[in-house]
């Protein structure tokens, strides 16, 4: 049997993984590994960072320099790594809870600074690892383990948040768009500046079962695909038509000086004593 083309990236003894059957995180990990192969990147020049949660496990399984295990602090670690050694390519994997709740401030500040890292957010709309609690990305009125009578809060549009905070590259795809996702991850890593890639993903165990009422991951993937509309199409739709839809595509792509670039420039121009 031929080994999987991405098997060579797996940390020795790292498997089996802990993802539930039908989980989207494994797909996203694969998209990332395809992306770095297609870009011909040397993994020894990379640092992979994960916080806490299902998605944060991606760097645990890949054989690379990696940091893992504290909830929400991925971008703070990344800031130190990148400023200390700007040559390193830093890719961060965080969940919606990790990025938009406990790590929300680090997220918007890193975007504002245009820190040259790639942040891949795996958004499944719920806290999966801890048992399906409400997240800042859970839709209004959804029933979760901590909103038994329905979610009272509105959800974040993470791409709009990233854009407003100053991210210089922003895109969103779902696990049902593998080719676009790989392309987006490639572009995100190549982008000089803060790249934000939101991957809407399925959590069949909690969001699928309890919020959407699906019994099979396949139904869920089909729903992700059918429920997605392109940015172009969405621009012609009314807010009512867009309700509950996932708008996919590239929202921001601009070149601005990064934090490190400005720092290096300051070193050259600052007044010598």
């Amino acid at each position, binding site marked *: 049997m031929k080994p999987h083309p991405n098997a060579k990236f797996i940390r020795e003894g790292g498997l089996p993984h802990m993802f539930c059957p039908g989980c989207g995180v494994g797909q996203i990990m694969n998209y990332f590994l395809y992306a770095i192969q297609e870009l011909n990147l040397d993994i020894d020049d990379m640092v992979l960072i994960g916080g806490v949660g299902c998605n944060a496990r991606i760097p645990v399984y890949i054989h690379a320099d990696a*940091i*893992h*295990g504290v909830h929400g602090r991925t971008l*703070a*670690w990344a800031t*130190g*790594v990148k400023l200390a050694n700007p040559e390193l390519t830093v890719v961060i994997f965080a969940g919606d809870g990790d990025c938009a709740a406990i790590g929300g*401030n680090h997220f918007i500040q890193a975007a504002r600074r245009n820190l040259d890292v790639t942040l891949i957010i795996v958004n499944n709309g719920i806290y999966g690892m801890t048992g399906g609690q409400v997240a800042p990305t859970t839709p209004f009125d959804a029933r979760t383990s901590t909103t038994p009578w329905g979610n009272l809060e509105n959800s974040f549009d993470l791409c709009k948040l990233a854009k407003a905070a100053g991210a210089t590259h922003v895109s969103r795809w779902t696990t049902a768009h593998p080719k676009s996702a790989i392309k987006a991850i490639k572009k995100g890593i190549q982008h000089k500046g803060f790249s934000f890639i939101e991957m809407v993903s399925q959590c069949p165990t909690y969001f699928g079962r309890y919020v959407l009422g699906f019994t099979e991951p396949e139904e869920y993937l089909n729903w992700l695909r059918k429920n997605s509309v392109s940015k172009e199409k969405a621009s012609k739709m009314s807010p009512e038509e867009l309700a509950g839809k996932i708008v996919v595509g590239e929202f921001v792509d601009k070149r601005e000086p990064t934090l490190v670039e400005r720092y290096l420039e300051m070193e050259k121009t600052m007044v*010598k004593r």
Partner: protein
Amino acid sequence: MSKYEEISGVQFLLGNHAIAEGAIAAGCRYFAGYPITPASEIAERMSERMPRVGGRFIQMEDEIGSIFSVIGASLAGVKAMTATASDGYNYMLEGICFAVTTEVPCVIVNVQRTRQDIQPTQADVMQIKWGASGDFEIICLAPSSVQEAFDLTVEAFNLAEKYRNPVVVISEAIISHMRGKVVIPEYDKIKIINRKKPKVPPEEFLPFKGEEDGVPPMSKFGDGYRILYSVNPHDEKGKILWDPDVYERLYDRLLGKIARDVDNIAKYETHFLDDADIAVVSYGSETRSALDAVIKARKEGIKAANVKLTTIWPVSSKLLEEVADRVKKIIVPEMNVGKYFLEVQRICNGKTKLVSMPKNRGEMHTSEEILNIIRRNSK
């Protein structure tokens, strides 16, 4: 490094600036911090100095961001420090847990202040030892002068690198906001310790297997060693797993590398101890009044001594037991409700008489106050 970037010779410095200069002299090239009185001057000085010495400075969004970015920089191979005051240190405990378990060298300055005010205090001495969740050992140095603010910050970096552990410099508003004379040696004459590097290729390297001293060598990001630094329980290869034996072994080593080497770590000074009947055990700014009081008591014919603890964690039981065996009474003056006294009591109980001398009102003891207690206890 060109000469103009080095600040050495006789200097007249603010305590907080001496801390910053100590860090630079020790090789610190990354600083992240968040403003807080009375620690802010450390960040201000570092923002000006870091670019001059080829380092990086960033003001983060909070103390949590500061400590984690310091950890990131250290993993990338750069010596790094952050500084805060009591309330900010609360936030940093999360990062300290991570740095202890993943063995990331870093230095944290905690300029103690009264809760939500800026008066001097020593109220946080126990927090350093016990504040974070789970098991950890930490090294904590307490300067009592501006010169020591410099010297002990250099020492803090050396200890952090040697033991691959966070090290805390615990200051107080008194030391940090005092100006004083500091003699800074030329940088190349200062003893510097750097973390051990792996001696074997990546495929043979066990990143979390201690050498004889319990401390593993450390690669930096980009070296090709592909290390996973996770706070989750991990084996010697760094693989995350739950196995009671592995967990027990990991924390036995993490704690043991410091606890078993206390005698090499713990620094102290004794004054007039040889023939003493009474010893005043002090740390930080309280040492200034304590030593003065002891000198005055000696002039009155009272055989008093001062034992100054430079390292407050880990505590040297050997030293305190020795002191207890020699003297009839130990007095512990503190700028808090009498916290470190409990540690002295734990070690010395039953061996000699112990007197706690707390002062919890944002003021240090005067030497007269300590002298009065010495007099009363010499009768």
